[in-house]
């Protein structure tokens, strides 16, 4: 067994899961059990693939083996699946976090009595199947196909509530994502095929030959690069970021896994993949057409952070933070240096763990306290210490403080910046550190150190730290809506607290044990053609 067929299995597991969920939709317990089982199975499959991607002789064996052809869509344009280290990181993150997210979803969807839960779980599984397709795609065309599948399968999740606002936001979501991908990415792919006759991902890119025999010239590379970068709207490079805040109307598990991990990571993953495996370092460096991306991504980091500073809605603030953090990955990749690529790969993992924790916390607050705005969060950490503790850890990871995963990616990003000599990137990272601290820490402070509204009358300075609430003490949040504003609540349901505790722990563990992520990142590094 060479393992090349495993990616197909990785795609099939959630797809089959989706069907089963649909079949057993009437029985919530079975349906949700299937979701969880599917996610566990998927992780099992992905873990089977991992050793192949980490193997020392990966580039000479697994990579050179014939790719798994799903089908030949058009003559000469097959849909292929292939194992690749960067995709491995992405698949691993998505599949492992899906387990926690499934648990979380159960708590959240039941806790908030959401409708259409079968559709929700089905689309979720389909989205994960698409994610696996993206992660293991063997050529840019396959990636595009699953990229679109992901857009479509997540649309019902964004529009889930069916309110006019949800539908409108979902329109923006789909409009921008499909608009950019059809309007820019697709023609870019077709043009790539037109110029090179080759759409396969390969280290060093596909353009070298065309450049050498002058079938394509530098400026054309530049135009194509632009089309790719903005065509991948999921990377939320400004000004194509509007869909991300719009998508926040979705139920929180969706925001958490999809809009912190799966969908946005599909975007930046594609960006990195295109840079490394379609354009290749040499083509971009020799033509000098990729440099603008550094400045655009840098501007995105800073501007999105500035916008985040002024958001009072928690999920919106997180969304703008995501916009900013995604551009960390983009800027790292656009440095076009091996260390930059490593930084990009690692930040995909690091940001995933941190941001999903933050979103889980936001959803936990919503479930337990029905609060969505930061200004309502005074003193909430005393009632929900686990939630807000996790939130604090996630925040530190965003700022890049040890011992959290964010530190490691910042480490590599700065290394890459020095390697290439872009002082601009250094300045951006410093500024962004400041801004991240500026918009995350006030939330943590409010939650833990500000007296909750009803306690202001008899706040005592020295006993204001509150008790560590019992995570089991919940379940009354819905019966007495009249008291919600008075904070008569404890922690969120157990599955939620469990999930967010796990991701927060993951954020810290990734700092101490980054070996897998680093190993895969180094594998990318090893595959690059020697200069």
């Amino acid at each position, binding site marked *: 067994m060479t393992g090349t067929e495993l990616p197909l299995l990785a795609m099939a597991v959630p797809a089959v899961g989706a069907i089963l969920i649909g079949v057993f939709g009437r029985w919530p317990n079975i349906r949700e059990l299937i979701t969880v089982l599917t996610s566990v199975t998927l992780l099992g499959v992905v873990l089977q693939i991992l050793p192949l991607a980490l193997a020392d002789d990966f580039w000479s064996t697994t990579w050179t083996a014939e790719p798994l052809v799903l*089908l*030949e*869509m*058009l*003559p000469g*344009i097959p849909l292929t699946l292939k194992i690749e280290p960067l995709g491995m990181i992405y698949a691993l993150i998505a599949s492992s976090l899906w387990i926690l997210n499934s648990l979380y979803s159960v708590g959240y969807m039941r806790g908030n009595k959401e409708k259409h839960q079968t559709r929700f779980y089905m689309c979720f599984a389909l989205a994960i199947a698409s994610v696996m397709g993206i992660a293991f795609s063997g050529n840019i065309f396959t990636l*595009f*196909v699953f990229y*679109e*599948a992901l857009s*479509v399968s997540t649309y*019902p999740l964004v*529009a889930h509530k*069916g309110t006019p606002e*949800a*539908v409108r936001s*979902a*329109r923006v979501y*789909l*409009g921008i994502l*499909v*608009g950019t991908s*059809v*309007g820019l990415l*697709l*023609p870019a792919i*077709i*043009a790539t*095929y*037109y110029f090179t006759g080759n759409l396969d991902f390969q280290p060093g890119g596909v353009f070298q030959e065309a450049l050498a025999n002058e079938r394509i010239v530098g400026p054309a590379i530049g135009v194509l690069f632009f089309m790719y970068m903005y065509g991948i709207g999921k990377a939320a490079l400004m000004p194509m970021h509007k869909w991300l805040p719009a998508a926040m109307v979705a139920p929180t598990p969706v925001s958490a896994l999809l809009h912190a991990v799966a969908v946005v990571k599909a975007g930046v993953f594609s960006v990195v993949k295109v840079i490394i495996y379609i354009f290749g370092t040499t083509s971009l460096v020799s033509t000098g057409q990729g440099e603008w991306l550094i400045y655009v991504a840098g501007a995105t980091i800073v501007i999105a952070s500035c916008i985040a500073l002024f958001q009072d809605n928690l999920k919106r603030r997180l969304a703008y933070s995501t916009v900013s953090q995604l551009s960390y990955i983009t800027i790292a990749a656009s440095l076009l240096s091996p260390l930059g690529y490593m930084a990009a790969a690692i930040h995909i993992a690091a940001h995933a763990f941190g941001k999903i924790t933050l979103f889980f916390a936001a959803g936990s607050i919503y479930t337990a306290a029905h609060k969505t705005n930061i200004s309502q969060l005074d003193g909430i950490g005393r009632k929900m210490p686990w939630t807000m503790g996790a939130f604090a850890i996630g925040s530190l990871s965003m700022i890049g403080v040890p011992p959290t995963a964010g530190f490691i990616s910042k480490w590599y990003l700065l290394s890459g910046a020095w390697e290439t000599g872009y002082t601009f990137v250094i300045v951006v990272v410093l500024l962004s550190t400041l801004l991240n601290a500026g918009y995350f820490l006030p939330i943590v402070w409010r939650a833990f150190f500000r007296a909750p509204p009803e306690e202001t009358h008899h706040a005592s300075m020295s006993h204001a730290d509150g008790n560590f609430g019992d995570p089991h003490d919940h379940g009354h949040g819905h019966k007495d809506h009249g008291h919600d504003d008075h904070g008569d609540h404890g922690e969120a349901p157990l599955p939620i607290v469990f999930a967010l505790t796990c991701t927060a722990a993951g954020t810290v563990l990734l700092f101490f044990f980054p070996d897998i992520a680093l190993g895969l990142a180094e594998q990318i590094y090893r595959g690059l053609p020697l200069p």
Partner: protein
Amino acid sequence: MIDIQANLPALIVVIPLLGGVLATFTGRGILPWAWASLVTGATFALTLRMMATLLQSGAPYISYELGNWPRWWGIEYRVDLLNAFILLVVAGVGFITTLYARESVNDEIAKDRHHVFYAVWILAITGLLGITITGDAFNVYVLLEISSLTVYALIAMGKDRDRRALTASLRYLILGSVGASFILLGIGYLMMVTGTLNMEDMHNQLMRLANLDTNRTVLVAFAFLLVGLSIKMALYPLHMWLPKAYTYAPSAVSALLAATATKVGVYMAFRFLFGIFGVGFSFYAMPSHLILLAMASLGIVFSSLAAIRQNNAKSLLAYSSVGQIGYIVAGFSLANPDGVAGSIVHIFNHAVTKGGMFLALGAVAYRVGGTDISHLRGLAKRMPLTCGALALGGLGLIGMPLTAGFISKWYLVKGAMGSGMWGLVVVVLFGSLLALVYVWKLIEAMYFGEPTGRSAEAKEAPLSMLIPIWILVALSIYFGVDATFTGETATRAAAGLLGGTP
């Protein structure tokens, strides 16, 4: 017993012709439908066999002389890869829509006219098949009239549901007749110059003309034909007959028309522009491709916009069809292999996609009593399979990957790039985005709206409707996933057209 294999081309026309005539004697009840199904089914089988024969023989074309008259005197039926493919589409869609028609026709047309309906129905299909198979220019006109007149009648039969079908039919009749007479005039002028009605002969004679490019008769013929064909294939802005006709026709008729009628118009354009006038004249000597491209581009943009404005799902799809014709015309106007192949493949892809969608709307009308957007609201809960088909078909219209529509777009964009027509690339992709908008109007209504009135109690469509709907939708997905057959056939057919063989 006649030799089926030897007389295949003739049988493809003769069987439905006779079948159509005989249908008037089938009386009431289920019989007319059963007969029609039998006839169209047999015809479809014949076209399949035709295709198989052609592919097996490896010959560029199969020629059949009716009554064994030499072709320059008599009528020649000629089947090459292109029209075998179109025949397959017409007969296939004809058969499937016939299967579908039973419940829908029961519902929409008075019981005492069913035998008439099916007779006209079969004859319409016959006309379309005939246009496609014949190699004789005048025969084209004759069959065109047959198909046109029958279609007028079919549309008018929508009056039982909505009186406006009559005016729509009249409108089509007037404009269609103008188009047909323009075509007749064009053919006439051509005969004056060449002295023949056989297409291949005509081409050869024209090529022999020393002053072809400046010959005024040829030019006038060209102009008349182009305008006439544009009307027939509903190229923007000469599409004025189409939206109302599609909207008010009986459900099955809308599907049949959308899938086949305009496509046969396009096929005629292929034959005349590529086959008779030749690529050199049509696209290099005359700058007609620029005009066609302009019309197509405007059509893509404006009829898509118009589609977005519609509040009736059927007129929405009708306007969308005008836009899709724009893609097809734009493709062959490029006159390069990818473009023409895109055009041909889109004839097929659009036929199955749009056919499926119209059928699904028919099912909606059958259960809910109308096809307004308000009827569709929240319907996905009540009629999940129908709505699912509509949604999948919609994705095909947008050109989402893994649907047939994407394949067409791939070829078209590649063709446009090959000709350096970057503007067309933009238009095609912009059209996709507009398609996204109007398709999403349907999807939002179906999946995220709250049902009212009859929609709230609607049941899933009957199986006899669902199966045909899903056959077409499944085809549109299958040929999006594995487009090797359609893609290669289209590419080869395109090579044939560009090579100049009629």
